[in-house]
C-alpha cells in the first residue's frame, strides 16, 4: 500500500552464514522481512572489487536503503555514495562521512570487558583463553577489552591468547580453532573466548568436547552447546540492520555516525535459558555492576584502536 522501500544488503567476506558477524546482520534482515513482508535482496561478494560493483548495481536498480556490512566496504562506499546522492546507505563497523550514509560502529571492547569479567569469575584455574582470527586491530580491540575485564574481576588471572592465521582462511578454519583451544586447555585454561568468525565454531566445539567453558561472539551463540557456553558477547549488528531498514520504512532514517556501546544497547552479554545454570547470581550481580559502571562512566574501557596499544 505504502511506497515500500526496496532494501538490499552487501555482505562482508566470510558469507552470510558465518554464525557470527554476517549472520547477525542476516538475522536482523530476516526479522525485518518477517515483520514487513518486504523482500530484501542481498549479495555475497567473492572479492574486494565486487563490493563497489555490488553497491553500484543495487543503487542503479533503485534499491534503497543499502547496507554495506563490514569495514572493508568503506572505500568503495565512499565512491558509490557520491555517485548516488539520493540513495541511502548504511555501513557497519566504519565511518563514511557522506550526507547520505549512516555509519554504525560498536564498542566491542565494552562488550568484551563484560564477558572478560564473566570468564574470570567462572574460571577455577585462573587461566583464561582467547582465540582471535587474524592479528588485526579490530581483533586486538576485542582481546584488549576482554583482558581488562579479566583483570578487573581477578587481577591475578592470566590470559592465554592465540591468533588463528594470516590468510583469509583464518576466519574459516574451525579445525585450527579447535586445536588452538585444546592447546590452551592443555595449558590450564578453562574458559575460552572466540573472536574469529567461523573459526570460533571449532573453538566452541573443542570446549564442549573437553567440558570447558566457551564464550561466543557477535550473535548469541549460547544455543550451540548448552552447558558449556558460558555466555556470548553480543554485537547487535542485527539490531543495526533491522533499525536501518525499519527507519527507512518509517521515514525516520538519518545519516551520520552512531557509536553503539553498552549504553546504547549495541553491545551486551547474553543470558538466556541455555546458560542460566552456569551464571550464578553472584556472577550476574558482579557483571551487571560492571555494566552499570561502564554505562555511567565510572569504568572507562580502553579502546585498543585509539592508540594501537592496550593501555
Amino acid at each position, binding site marked *: 500500500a505504502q511506497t515500500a522501500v526496496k532494501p538490499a544488503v552487501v555482505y562482508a567476506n566470510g*558469507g*552470510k*552464514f*558465518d554464525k557470527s558477524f554476517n549472520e547477525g546482520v542476516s538475522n536482523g534482515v530476516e526479522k525485518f522481512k518477517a515483520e514487513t513482508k518486504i523482500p530484501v535482496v542481498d549479495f*555475497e561478494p567473492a572479492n574486494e572489487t565486487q563490493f563497489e560493483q555490488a553497491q553500484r548495481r543495487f543503487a542503479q536498480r533503485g534499491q534503497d536503503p543499502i547496507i554495506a556490512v563490514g569495514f572493508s566496504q568503506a572505500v568503495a562506499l565512499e565512491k558509490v555514495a557520491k555517485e548516488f546522492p539520493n540513495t541511502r546507505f548504511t555501513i557497519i563497523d566504519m565511518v563514511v562521512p557522506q550526507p547520505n550514509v549512516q555509519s554504525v560502529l560498536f564498542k566491542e571492547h565494552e562488550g568484551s570487558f563484560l564477558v572478560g569479567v564473566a570468564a574470570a569469575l567462572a574460571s577455577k584455574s585462573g587461566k583464561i583463553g582467547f582465540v582471535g582470527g587474524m*592479528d588485526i586491530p579490530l581483533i586486538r580491540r576485542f582481546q584488549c577489552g576482554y583482558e581488562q575485564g579479566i583483570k578487573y574481576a581477578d587481577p591475578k588471572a592470566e590470559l*592465554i*591468547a*592465540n*591468533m588463528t*592465521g*594470516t590468510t583469509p*582462511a583464518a576466519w*574459516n*578454519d*574451525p*579445525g*585450527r580453532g*579447535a*586445536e*588452538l583451544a*585444546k*592447546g*590452551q*586447555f*592443555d*595449558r590450564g585454561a578453562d574458559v575460552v573466548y572466540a573472536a574469529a568468525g*567461523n573459526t570460533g*565454531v*571449532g573453538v566452541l*566445539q573443542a570446549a564442549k*568436547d*573437553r*567440558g570447558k567453558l566457551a564464550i561466543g561472539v557477535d550473535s548469541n551463540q549460547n544455543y*550451540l552447546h548448552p552447558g558449556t557456553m558460558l555466555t556470548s558477547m553480543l554485537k547487535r549488528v542485527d539490531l543495526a540492520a533491522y533499525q536501518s531498514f525499519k527507519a527507512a520504512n518509517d521515514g525516520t532514517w538519518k545519516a551520520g555516525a552512531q557509536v553503539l556501546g553498552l549504553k546504547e544497547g549495541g553491545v551486551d552479554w547474553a543470558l538466556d535459558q541455555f546458560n542460566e545454570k552456569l551464571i550464578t547470581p553472584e556472577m550476574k550481580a558482579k557483571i551487571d555492576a560492571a555494566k552499570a559502571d561502564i554505562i555511567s562512566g565510572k569504568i572507562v574501557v580502553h579502546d585498543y584502536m585509539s592508540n594501537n596499544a592496550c593501555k
Partner: protein
Amino acid sequence: MDEAFSFVFLMVAATLRVATPLVLCAMGGLFSEKSGIIDVGLEGKMLMAAFFGAATASVSGSAWVGVAAAIVAAEALALLHGFACITWRGNQVVSGVAINIIAAGLTVVLGNAWFARGGQTPALVGDQRLMSLFFPTAGDNAIVYLALLSVPATWWIIERTRFGLRLRAVGEMPLAVDAAGISVTWLRYRAVLLCGLLAGLAGAYLSVAQGAGFGRDMTAGQGFIALAAIIFGKWRPFPAFGACLMFGLLDAIAIRLQGVKVSGIGEVPVQLILALPYLLTMFLLAGFIGRAVAPKAAGIPYEKER
C-alpha cells in the same frame, strides 16, 4: 614429576591429533607416488571427503556411515585422477591442481544447495561424531589409531608383498612391468585407489572426528604438508611418518609459543610463528635432507601404443 608427565602426555596427544590427517595423507600419497603417479590433489580429496563425511553423518546420524561416505567421495576423485593421468595420460600436477580447485568450489556449492548454510554442514552431535576411545583429554578417536596402524601396514605392503614389489617396479620402470606381463594400468589404478582410501579417512577425521562438521576450505593446506612429508621421508613410510610427527609437534609448539616473549628479541610476531612450518619445510628441503630421489617414473605418463 607428575606435571612433567602430564605435560609430555598432552604434547604427545596434541602432536598426534594434528599429525593424524597428515599421516593418513602421506601414506596414501606414498602408494600413489611409489606407483609413479604424483598426487598434488591430496588436499582436494581430503576436502571432498570431509564434506561428504560430515554431510552424510549429519543426515544418517551415524559417524561410521559418514566415514564410509567420505571414503567413497575421495575414491571418486581418486578415480578421476586415475582416469586423467593413467587412462588419458594427462599431466599429473595439472590434474591434481584441478581436483583441488574443483573440491574447493564444489563442496561449498553443494553444501549451499543442500544445507543453505554458506557451505557448512550442520554441526554434528552425539553419535554423528567419532569420540575419544580411552583418554578424553587426548582426543584419541578410532581414526587416530588407524593412522598409527597405517604406517607399518604401508611399509609391510610395499616391502613384503607381491603387490608392493610390482608397485615399486612400476614407479621406477613401467616398461619392465609391462614386459613382465603385468598390467601397468591396473597396478596404478590400485595404487591411486589406496591413496583415495587413506585420503578419505583423513578427510573424515577432520570433519567427523576431530571437528564436528564441515566448513569451507577446512583442510587449510594440510594436503600440501603431507606431500612435503613424503619428500622429507624420501618416499619411505617410517621416515615420512617421522616428518608428519615433526610437523605435528611444530604445530603444538607453535600454539604454545604465541605471545611468549623471547629474551632479547621480545615477543615473537604471531605471523612468524604461523609461517614457521612452511619456512622450516623450505629450510630443511634446501639443506638438510640431501637430495631426495623420487621414483624415477613419477610424473611421467606411461605412453605406450598398442
